[in-house]
Each structure stands twice: as structure tokens, then as C-alpha cells.
């Protein structure tokens, strides 16, 4: 039984053989396929369902899920509870009135607050809700809070079903004992804390939601410390318990193909960094998490480590060692810069220091944030708007005029997003939110929703953020740079002729295309001339968004991403001025366009860091790929550590590193059966390569270093 790695080194063995088997089965789709068997619970029998309010319908759905969703207890599991309904894997509330269609969309892109349930238990949260119910008079608010209490009762029904089922089995005495306390009462030790978080997480997912976990080492570290000190638990035992949490989290792996691959349910985990008081939080749990993913290669909880200038060398080296095994499981935040960025947004320092992410890398305060982003293609604006689909009558007398025109067109795009996405969400007073789809279960783990009596989607959270995300920015910078060089500096082609050539997709102009492709140094090679074009656009983009920030209760700040959209955008894109033909898959996130970066990772980081990235308040990601053979030396660990530290010192935001070579990916495309667990970093998430569509696989292959 071996866990896949692209490295020549073997993954270490620390876990019990039975735990390893459990992991192996889970990674090989055993429970995912089981989850698919029952996709949803039926609401058909509920009298008067169709005439109920949306909230009442939701309440019925959650009750039915709690009462009838299949119970799953795996042999030897150390934590219990399972999200067993298949529609949830597709981002839906898994309950249907009409068998032919899904009823309600669920919630993702959030990290909820698990601190409260550990401290006061679900009973404490229920008491809070009862208090709030008494306080409010508004019938809508009362109805919402009642729904909260109802959902806690549903959770109790579901929880009791597990307790009863476990009583029937032998060998689950400790699990049963734990479940008698958590999650309804406060957790008293590490094991109870793990079970408590797992129960809440599983119930959230059972009801269709895709929450992140957040800062697991902060959540669990002090429990483990106390248990170790009093000898209640050994580090090895703690590792086994925590490993079961990770293995259970693989229960949605189905091995089935979908466009962007499976394993992207945004169950993000954050490690390390400072706490509210500014003290480093790294503890035994931090290292246990790294041990577990190093051994099993479980990539379903994308892990991001908060690195700052004082991060201990030991942690950096562990991170580098895990990165070397491939799978792209571990990414890094530059904590110093993220905190500066949040301060720039006006978040109080203590609050900012709690940051986690939404599911990919967009920074948010867990349990306090409703976040959404609006992606758009920056290259499309250049091609379709500024250059009017390469209109042959178009002419610009100099580069500056062209550049200014692009920024003007970008500004209009931002204004449109603001009108369509922010103002649309609000009532006419621009203060109150319009009614939205119910999602009460989420509100149980969001601070302030219950107290305010307002749901998650209707402004109940402390922070509401909508962030325009620019994509294709490196392609825009490269395009503008190519025009600057070829048309205005070297004058090897006139502007009008160049437009005609691009309109005709470089037809019969292969020599000019090759010249432009091969003779200029594009973004990713530490060439100031092109890098500063990118940096300037980003700066202006941020300012354009800030103009509307704080105009309404919804924060409006910028970020950079494509996630995988460069694949979807490719067919709509025209030829690009830097030598690319129409339809090619270009840059992802803020990473160089595939094939243009020839100077290595250090130069890529230098290019990326020239922009003032703290102004991208919801994040700007960089992807770096290594060939396994290049980092199979001892020195490679120092080198990876050096890259991470350099990234922090130069002012990077978020960096994900993966190690896999093209040959392996191409082989996996041909023989998927042999590469079931080859996991690759897609963007903010990982996916098993063989479950992705051909287009997405090709994109990953293209961006992998030749």
C-alpha cells in the first residue's frame, strides 16, 4: 500500500497500518461512491410544501435530511458523522420536491467559526438564539431566528441517530463517549474538540455547504498541549485521531470526471502565523497536520501556511519537505503583507490577525464574512474594447495614449460590476439587502447573524465583501509590451498593419509572430519594462475599486484570479499581440503566460512582487512549478525555503508550489487507471488529475515546466 508521489523519495510511515488502509480506501473512492448512491432526500410527501415560504421550505428540507439521510459508520473510525448525500457534492441542498431538479443552491467560499462551538457547544449557541428570539420583535427576524433554533434541533436529531447506531456496535465506546458531550456541550480535550469540529463540519456539508476549516492549529493546539502535559494523550495517539479527521474529509472523492476535477470542496485549512496578540501560534498540531498530509498525500484539505519574517526555520523546512512530495497540497501566505493589506482596508488589528481564507485564497475573517468575487477577463477588455476587435481603422499615435485608453476601459468595467453586482444586491435605500435564498445552517457558525436576526446572505455577517477579480493580467501586460516594442520602439510594423495581422490571427505572418515571441522578455523574467506595465494596471485597478468601497454596507475591493477560467476564456479570445494565436490557453492568476518564463522561479517571484500587492485586498496568487528531478537533492530544501523567504521579503501575497513533470502528466492522461491519486494544484484547490476534463488537463500540462 503506497501513497502516490512524484518524488523519488518514499513517503514516510508514521500512522497505524489500519489508519493507512482507511486512508487508502477513502482516497480510492470507497466512500465517495457510497455518497453518490443516495443523492438526496425526498420532500414530495410534505403537505403544502409548494405554497410554503422559502424559509419554511428550507426548514422542511433540513429536518428531512436530519431524519433520513443515510448513517455511515466506517470500520475502526475514530471520529463519527458523515455527509452522505450526493447532491451536496454538486453544491446543492440535497433535498428535492421534484425528482427531476435540485431545489436550492447551498453556500461556499466561506470559513465558518468553529471556536464558538468548542467553547460553548451547540447548546450554548441555542441559548444565544433563544435569547435573540426574545429580544427581537420584527417578524422576519423572529422567523429567521426560529429557523436557527430549528436547525440546531435538526442537528440534534441527526446526532442522536449516530449515538443510537454506535450503541449497537462494538469497538466504538470512546467515540460514543465523546458524542455524549460534543458538539452540544463544550469540548474538554483534544479528542472531543476534533469530534466536535468534525460533527459540525459534517452536518454543514450534509446540508450541502462547502465551508473551510480555518486555523486548525489555533482551534486545537491548546487542547493538545493540555492533554500532553497531563499525560492523557501521546503525540502518536493525537496524530491518529487527527488523521481520521483528514481521512473522513475524503468522503466526497468519487473518482468521477467533471470539468475542473474533483476534490475542490474548498475545505481549506490554515496553519501557523500570529494570534490576536501578535504571538506565533505554531504548535504540535501544526506539525501533526504536515505529518499527515506528507504521509498520505491527502489533498482534499488544501493547506496554506501563514509565513512571516520570523517564522521558525524548522517549520519552513517541514513545509518544503512536504512540497517536495508533490500534489500541491501546501501553499503559503505572506502574513506580513496580508496583515498590511487588511489594515489598509481598515480592519482592526486584532480582527485582521484572525484571517483565514474562503476556499481558494481570498482572505477573510472566519465566521464574520460573506464574500463573493466577480471574475472578468482583462485581456478581453484590451482586445474587444480598447482595440475594438482589432479594427483596421484604429490607430494610436503613441504607447501612452493606448495605455491610458485601456485603463479608461477598465474603469468602465469596474463601474459596471459595481452597478450590476453590488447595487443589485441591495434594496433601493442602498443599505438593506434584498431577500435571498435561505441557508440558515451556515448562520449557526457565523458570529452576529443570530444576534442581528439577519441571515447570512441578507447582511447578517459583520463583513460583506464583493471583489472584482481581474484575470489575464500578465497577458495584458505582455500584449501592451509587445505593441510598445514592435510598433512604437522598434517600428518593425505599423499599428494599423499590426491590427490587420492580429485580426487575421497571424496568418502568413509567422516570421513576425516568431520574432515577437522570441525576441522580447515577457512578464516572469524580471524585466522591469513589462513588469511595471502589469504593476501599474494593478495599482490603478485597485484605486478604481476603492472609489466605490464604503459607498454601501458592501465592501468593494480588488483581487486577481483566473482560478481555471483561462481555459473557458480561451475560445473567446482573439490572437494576442505577443505572438499567441486565438484560442490559446494563456496566463493563470498572476503567473506568467505558459512558455514565456525562461529565467526560473526566483525571476518569476521578482516579476510578481513588483506590483504593490497589498492593494489587492482579496488576494493575488502566484503558481510555481518544479520538475521533481530538479528538487530531488538535499540542497533543494534550502532552495525552496529560500524561495519562500524571498517571496515574503519581496512582498508577495500567496504562492502555491507544485512538483510534477510533463511526462508524468501526459502518461497519466493516457493511462488514468495508474494515476488515480495523482493530485495537482489547479489554483486555490487541488484536484485528482485524471478526473479533470481534457481541456483542463491540457491546461495543467501546458503550464508545467518543459
Amino acid at each position, binding site marked *: 500500500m503506497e501513497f502516490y508521489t512524484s518524488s523519488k523519495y518514499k513517503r514516510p510511515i508514521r500512522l497505524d497500518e489500519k489508519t493507512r488502509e482507511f486512508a487508502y480506501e477513502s482516497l480510492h473512492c470507497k466512500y465517495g461512491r457510497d455518497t453518490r448512491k443516495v443523492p438526496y432526500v425526498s420532500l414530495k410527501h410534505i403537505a403544502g410544501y409548494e405554497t410554503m415560504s422559502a424559509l419554511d421550505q428550507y426548514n422542511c428540507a433540513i429536518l428531512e435530511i436530519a431524519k433520513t439521510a443515510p448513517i455511515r459508520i466506517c470500520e475502526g473510525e475514530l471520529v463519527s458523522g458523515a455527509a452522505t448525500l450526493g447532491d451536496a457534492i454538486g453544491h446543492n441542498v440535497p433535498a428535492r420536491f421534484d425528482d427531476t431538479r435540485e431545489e436550492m443552491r447551498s453556500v461556499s467560499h466561506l470559513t465558518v467559526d468553529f471556536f464558538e462551538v468548542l467553547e460553548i457547544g451547540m447548546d450554548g449557541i441555542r441559548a444565544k438564539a433563544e435569547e435573540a428570539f426574545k429580544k427581537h420583535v420584527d417578524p422576519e427576524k423572529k422567523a429567521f431566528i426560529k429557523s436557527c433554533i430549528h436547525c440546531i434541533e435538526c442537528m440534534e436529531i441527526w446526532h442522536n441517530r449516530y449515538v443510537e447506531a454506535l450503541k449497537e456496535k462494538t469497538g466504538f465506546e470512546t467515540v460514543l463517549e465523546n458524542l455524549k458531550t460534543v458538539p452540544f456541550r463544550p469540548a474538554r480535550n483534544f479528542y472531543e474538540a476534533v469530534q466536535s469540529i468534525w460533527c459540525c463540519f459534517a452536518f454543514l456539508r450534509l446540508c450541502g455547504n462547502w465551508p473551510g476549516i480555518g486555523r486548525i492549529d489555533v482551534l486545537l493546539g491548546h487542547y493538545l498541549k493540555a492533554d500532553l502535559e497531563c499525560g492523557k494523550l501521546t503525540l502518536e495517539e493525537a496524530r491518529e485521531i487527527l488523521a481520521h479527521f483528514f481521512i473522513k474529509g475524503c468522503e466526497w472523492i468519487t473518482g468521477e470526471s467533471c470539468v475542473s476535477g474533483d476534490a475542490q470542496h474548498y475545505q481549506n485549512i490554515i496553519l501557523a502565523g500570529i494570534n490576536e496578540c501578535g504571538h506565533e501560534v505554531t504548535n504540535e498540531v501544526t506539525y501533526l497536520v504536515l505529518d499527515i498530509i506528507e504521509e498520505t498525500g491527502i489533498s482534499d484539505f488544501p493547506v496554506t501556511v501563514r509565513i512571516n519574517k520570523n517564522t521558525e526555520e524548522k517549520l519552513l523546512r517541514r513545509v518544503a519537505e512536504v512540497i517536495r512530495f508533490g500534489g500541491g497540497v501546501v501553499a503559503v501566505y505572506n502574513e506580513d503583507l496580508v496583515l498590511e493589506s487588511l489594515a489598509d482596508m481598515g480592519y482592526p488589528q486584532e480582527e485582521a490577525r484572525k484571517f483565514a481564507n474562503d476556499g481558494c485564497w481570498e482572505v477573510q475573517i472566519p465566521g464574520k464574512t460573506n464574500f463573493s468575487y466577480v471574475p472578468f477577463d482583462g485581456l478581453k477588455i484590451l482586445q474587444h474594447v480598447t482595440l475594438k476587435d482589432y479594427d483596421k481603422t484604429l490607430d494610436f499615435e503613441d504607447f501612452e495614449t493606448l495605455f491610458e485608453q485601456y485603463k479608461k476601459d477598465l474603469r468602465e468595467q469596474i463601474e459596471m460590476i459595481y452597478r450590476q453586482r453590488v447595487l443589485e444586491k441591495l434594496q433601493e435605500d442602498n443599505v438593506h439587502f434584498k431577500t435571498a435564498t435561505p441557508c440558515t445552517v451556515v448562520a449557526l457558525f457565523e458570529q452576529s447573524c443570530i444576534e442581528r436576526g439577519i441571515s447570512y446572505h441578507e447582511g447578517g455577517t459583520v463583513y460583506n465583501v464583493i471583489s472584482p477579480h481581474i484575470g489575464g493580467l500578465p497577458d495584458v501586460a505582455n500584449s501592451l509590451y509587445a505593441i510598445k516594442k514592435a510598433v512604437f520602439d522598434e517600428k518593425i510594423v505599423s499599428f494599423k498593419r499590426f491590427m490587420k495581422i492580429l485580426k487575421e490571427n497571424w496568418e502568413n505572418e509567422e516570421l513576425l509572430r516568431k520574432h515577437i515571441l*522570441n525576441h522580447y522578455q515577457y512578464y516572469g523574467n524580471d524585466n522591469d519594462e513589462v513588469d511595471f506595465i502589469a504593476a501599474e494596471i494593478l495599482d490603478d485597478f485597485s484605486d478604481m475599486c476603492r472609489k466605490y468601497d464604503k459607498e454601501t454596507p458592501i465592501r468593494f475591493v480588488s483581487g486577481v484570479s483566473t482560478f481555471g477560467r483561462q481555459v473557458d476564456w480561451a475560445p473567446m479570445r482573439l490572437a494576442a499581440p505577443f505572438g499567441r494565436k486565438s484560442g490559446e490557453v494563456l496566463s493563470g492568476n498572476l503567473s506568467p503566460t505558459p512558455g514565456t518564463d525562461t529565467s*526560473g522561479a*526566483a525571476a518569476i517571484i521578482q516579476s510578481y512582487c513588483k506590483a504593490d500587492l497589498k492593494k489587492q485586498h482579496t488576494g493575488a496568487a502566484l503558481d510555481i512549478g518544479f520538475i521533481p528531478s530538479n528538487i530531488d537533492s538535499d540542497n533543494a530544501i534550502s532552495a525552496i*525555503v*529560500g524561495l519562500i523567504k524571498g517571496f515574503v521579503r519581496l512582498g508577495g501575497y500567496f504562492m502555491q508550489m507544485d512538483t510534477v513533470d510533463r511526462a508524468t502528466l501526459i502518461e497519466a492522461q493516457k493511462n488514468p487507471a495508474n494515476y488515480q491519486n495523482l493530485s495537482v494544484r489547479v489554483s486555490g484547490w487541488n484536484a485528482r488529475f485524471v478526473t479533470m476534463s481534457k481541456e483542463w488537463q491540457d491546461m495543467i500540462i501546458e503550464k508545467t515546466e518543459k
Partner: protein
Amino acid sequence: MRAKIFDIQRNSFVDGPGIRTTVFLKGCNLNCKWCHNPESQLPKTQLLFYQSKCVSCGRCKEVCPHALKTCEWCGRCAVQCPTGAREVCGKEYTVEEVFCEVAKDRIFYQTSGGGVTFSGGECMLQIEFLREILKKCKEQGIHTAVDTAGDVPWEYFEKIMSVTDLFLYDIKCFSDNLHREGTGNSNELILQNLQKLSEQFSGDVIIRVPVIGGFNDREEELKQIATFVKKLRYKKTELLPYHEMGNYKYEALGRQYTSYYVPRQEEMEKYRTFF
């Protein structure tokens, strides 16, 4: 003062500790049959021509003062070549220009314990330049490494020892006959220099042994090298398996390459136990 340089590579993980920039100086006094940088051997500027990239557009011929009949390495054809099929190999750099390139990744040298490595060719053949650039880097606090085959007068080492932190020293074989056969030169001076270096140099020496399948991959040969180096003071030895990644460059130079084979991983593991 200028040196002939054929490449400056950033972000190397394999030419010494940490992240390094490797500066390749052109010209070598050995003629190793397996050389993976054949374009490094001659000191003069050369033209590389990659047939597979050529689209026969004829621009090179148009701009060449000699219509491609002879070559003075002016590089006009390479500038005009749209596909990069023609490449001028070897460019003159001043100390200042090289330093400027090296300094770009300074932050990464600090964060990774890396620095600059001078390689080749045989970088020590341009010893005066090498001393100046090493001095400059050293003054600026950059860790310096010299990758050498060691077949140069001992005085050359003396000239740069004080400004070098690390020598990467190649030993290709112990028996002189085999060395002559593979490189064209005796290894007497090489072994002598290494002996002296290990006695007199206060910095680090890493001894590197290329393992060339079909040439020196014999147990006895490698054991003899091991016996020799074990008597010396050095930081560590590294055995580097032969690879075929340089073969395409022989074609670009219009040369034949001698075929060797890549030693198997198990063999490499075994050889490493000798050291």
C-alpha cells in the same frame, strides 16, 4: 577587463548550496568526450544553428555580409532570425556587467544560503577576470563558488583562494591513461592541485565525480578515486550521473557526439557507498 561568457543562468539549485546564479565562462583546456556543454569548449564566439527551429526564411542570408559563406560571428543573423534557430554563443562582459546580473537575485542568496558560481568551460583560464569578479562579489557579501576541472597552474588557485568560499572540483578518473583517453590530457596536475587545495584552502571543497556509463563506471576506477579523495580534507563528494541533455547542442555546432549511457539508479547507489 572583459571575459567571454556564453551563459548566465539564474535560479540554479545544483551548482553549490542554496539558490545560485551560475556564470558560464567560455573556453576549456580539456576535451571531454561526454561534455554536456560542448559550446563551452572553444574560447572564441561560435554560432549555434538549430536545424529543427529553422523555417528557411532566408533573413540570415540577407543580412550576412558574407551571405553565410564564412562567419565572423557578428551576430546579425541571430538578431534577425525570428525563430531563434541561430544563436550567437559567447559574448564579452565587463566585471560590472556580470556583477549587475549576479546582483539581481541577491535577496534569494541571502534567504537560501546561495550565491554565485563561476563555471564553464574552465572558468579559471580567464583567471584575471575571474579574480576581479570574485573580489567584487565577495566585497558585496555574496557567497562565491568556482566550478573547475583543476587542470591549471597552481598559482591560479593561489590568486583566487582568498576571494572564493567554495570550490566545486571535478575528478573524472584516477588512472592517467583513462583520463588521457577521455579528456585528451593527463590528470597529474589535477590530482596534485586537489591535494594542495585540500591542504592550503581554508574554505570548502566539494569533490564532484561524473559517472559516465561506458567510460569510468567501473568499480575499480571509482574505488581508486574514492581511496585518493578519502585522504584529503573536503566537505563532501557528489557523484553526478551522465545525462544526455547536452546532445542536441552537438548537432547545433555541427559536431558528432560520442554516445555514452546513463548509469542506472541502483548502480549510482552502489557507487555512492564507495565514497
